[in-house]
């Protein structure tokens, strides 16, 4: 039979997203009172591309005085403009931000992948569109708050301090800023130090949208900047997304003050596969649950529970599927697994891999080649993990899955709930009654049934136990930014 040259494997050619249209300044200042302002300490830190270890830009480091300036600007904007204008006008500004994000979607996606290491497919298809969706959704609420909270008078809190993590830099900024503005608050936001760029681009966009000066202020920096913000006496509320350790510190700091607080912290979610589940789709859910964004996801399905009768079947299919994952250049449109966000995070993940091996667990990693420069971790499984294993107990925040098996429904619920965390969970079964039984008994803020990692601005997100309190998104998310009378 006449043939083509089928001896060679059919592999995809590189398909990198162009960076020609991207402009990144050499240096970024603080965004305070509508203007980019040099930091009073004159200190800057570097932000690097984790896929190449190249420096992308220098970012201003805000100290206590800068944070104070930002809070004062926010207070002035709150008293002078934002609490005075009609809700309908507020909505227009928020709509404008949403539309501008859509217009500049490609630019935001590329910068997000450059600065954070996530695959362009994700920043393009998830992060940026979902960020725009959050602004659209909350713009709609701005003049309808009385309907959100019937028979109550609704008023804003004032100035809110918001601190966000590095895993979804733009999206987390949207989750924080959109509801705060819609409910009439003004904002001082601190992005994570490894991923400031899209927040600063968002600052440019907010300025271009014509938002009154001081309504949104963005102060960049590391832990000390965050501490200055949480300790500031004129901040009415702190909203924090990040690690449980830092969350606890913040809660101690605000204790005894009038500050309101919402925390969205870590997780160690159970993803539960029953024997009657659609296995291939469940495998896809496992992949999406733990390898989405290199596992840098607080709601990642990092503990897999498989019913023992299908354990071998799932294991074989999961490993087979993992081998088709493409790891590499985050800007390549075919990349499934990008770079680990920072050197520090890679070291953390590697220390867990070492601990897992030391515990004698069976470790599986895919065969995919790994680039020489940059921070990378192959998709990894640990099987036969004990409930007491450090791999099953602690949040690794990387592409590392702990696999356990179970026999009965009661057993898996006990094991799934046996964790200090309670952010999310997944259930896979073809049987509806089983889903309802589990969703009522799992101590998790979000339970996905026959899917995983689905986000929508209309749906509240948040945790139980040490995964935090307060909800973001939906009606419940609005509640965290208003006083009711």
């Amino acid at each position, binding site marked *: 039979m*006449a*043939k083509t040259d089928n001896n060679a*494997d059919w592999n*995809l*050619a590189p398909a990198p997203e162009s960076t020609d249209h991207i402009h990144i300044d050499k240096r970024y200042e603080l965004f305070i009172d509508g203007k980019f302002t040099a930091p009073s300490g004159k200190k800057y830190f570097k932000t690097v591309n984790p896929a190449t270890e190249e420096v992308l830009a220098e970012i201003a480091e805000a100290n206590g005085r800068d944070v104070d300036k930002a809070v004062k600007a926010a207070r002035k904007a709150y008293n002078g403009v934002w609490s005075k204008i009609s809700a309908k006008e507020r909505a227009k500004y928020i709509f404008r931000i949403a539309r501008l994000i859509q217009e500049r979607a490609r630019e935001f996606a590329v910068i997000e992948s450059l600065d954070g290491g996530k695959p362009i497919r994700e920043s393009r298809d998830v992060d940026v569109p979902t960020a725009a969706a959050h602004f659209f959704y909350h713009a709609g609420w701005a003049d309808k708050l009385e309907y959100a909270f019937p028979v109550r008078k609704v008023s804003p809190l004032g100035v809110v301090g918001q601190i966000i993590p590095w895993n979804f830099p733009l999206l987390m900024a949207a989750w924080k800023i959109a509801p705060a503005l819609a409910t009439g608050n003004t904002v001082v936001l601190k992005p994570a130090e490894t991923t400031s760029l899209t927040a600063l681009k968002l600052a440019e966009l907010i300025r271009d949208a014509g938002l009154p000066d001081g309504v949104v202020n963005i102060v960049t920096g590391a832990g000390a900047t965050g501490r200055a913000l949480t300790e500031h006496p004129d901040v009415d509320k702190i909203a924090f997304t990040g690690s449980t350790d830092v969350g606890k510190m913040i809660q101690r700091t605000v204790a005894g003050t009038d500050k309101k607080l919402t925390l969205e912290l870590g997780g160690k979610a159970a993803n539960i596969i029953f024997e*009657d589940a659609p296995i291939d*789709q469940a495998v*896809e859910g496992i992949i999406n649950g733990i390898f989405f964004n290199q596992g840098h996801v607080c709601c990642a399905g990092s503990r897999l529970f498989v019913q023992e009768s299908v354990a071998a079947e799932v294991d*074989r299919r999961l490993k087979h599927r993992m081998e088709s994952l493409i790891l590499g250049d985050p800007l390549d449109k075919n990349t499934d697994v990008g770079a680990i966000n920072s050197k520090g995070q890679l070291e953390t993940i590697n220390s867990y891999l070492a601990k897992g091996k030391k515990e004698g667990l069976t470790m599986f990693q895919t065969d995919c080649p790994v680039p020489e420069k940059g921070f990378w971790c192959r998709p990894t499984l640990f099987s036969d993990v004990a409930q007491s294993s450090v791999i099953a107990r602690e949040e690794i925040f990387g592409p590392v899955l702990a696999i356990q098996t179970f026999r009965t429904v009661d057993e898996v619920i006990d094991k799934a709930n046996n964790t200090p965390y309670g952010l999310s969970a997944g259930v896979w079964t073809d049987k509806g009654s089983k889903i309802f039984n589990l969703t009522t008994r799992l101590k998790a803020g979000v339970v996905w049934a026959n899917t995983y990692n689905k986000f929508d601005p209309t749906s509240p997100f948040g945790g139980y136990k040490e995964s935090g309190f307060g909800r973001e998104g939906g009606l419940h998310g609005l509640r965290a930014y208003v006083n009711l009378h």
Partner: protein
Amino acid sequence: MTENISRKAVDQVGTEERCARFKTRSIKKEAKVSGLKMALNMIDLTTLEGKDTPGKVRQMCYKAMHLHDAYAGLPTVAAVCVYPSMVAVAKASLKGSGVKVASVATAFPAGQSSREVKLEDTRIAVDAGADEIDMVISRGRYHAGDYNFVYDEIAAVKEACGKARLKVILETGEMGTLDDVAFASRIAIAAGADFIKTSTGKIQPAATMPVTLTMLEVIRDHYFATGEMVGMKPAGGISNAKAALHYLIMVKETLGQKWLDNKWFRFGASSLANDLLKQLVKQKTGAYQSGAYFAID
């Protein structure tokens, strides 16, 4: 016989999501050129019309061997697919080319006939020289739950095929659910299918990505369980190069490189070839040529 065959569930939403992922793969440059050539080489060039004549079939056979002589180094298609009455003509035209002759049989496309007629139909095609037989399952019996009947019929046709390879058409457009697509695929493979095939091309929808993915996953399960390879043929509805490349991505990521060969994967199509050719020429010259430059046989 079919009592032990798994009725494992397939989730429609999850399957569609996975298919959407295949479509986000970006296939450029040399990967595109080799993918387009591979797709050409996997085509079952098909004519199944009441108006088919020996002359028309001979023209199609010439095209099968000479897809576009202006472009050097092109492969031939995998096979031509015709009615039993045209098998001898096709066989003679394709002599020595390596292009196979596939024939539909078993009272194609409706399958509304007796077992005797279906088996005789098959034998006539095989005796005329068909290398491959594309049969239809008895859909009425399947939907009535008479799975053993369906199984027996496939096994009987397989026996009538002798050395010819058997492709079993499920007519997934009449199946209704992916659960049934999977179950019918398992029955066909258990009964001896060498290939499983989505559609006759006579009803809509014909091949879709979710249906094809479900069938590929059954093939993979069978391979995992037994080490035996089974072929896959989506037919109808794949008329452009981009879609064909997405199907190849799906095959590669679901089954692996081994299936990227026309022994194990085929496209049942008539108009796909010219779009693949058009894209290949575009890769070489940078310009889309008019359809008038490509033969319509």
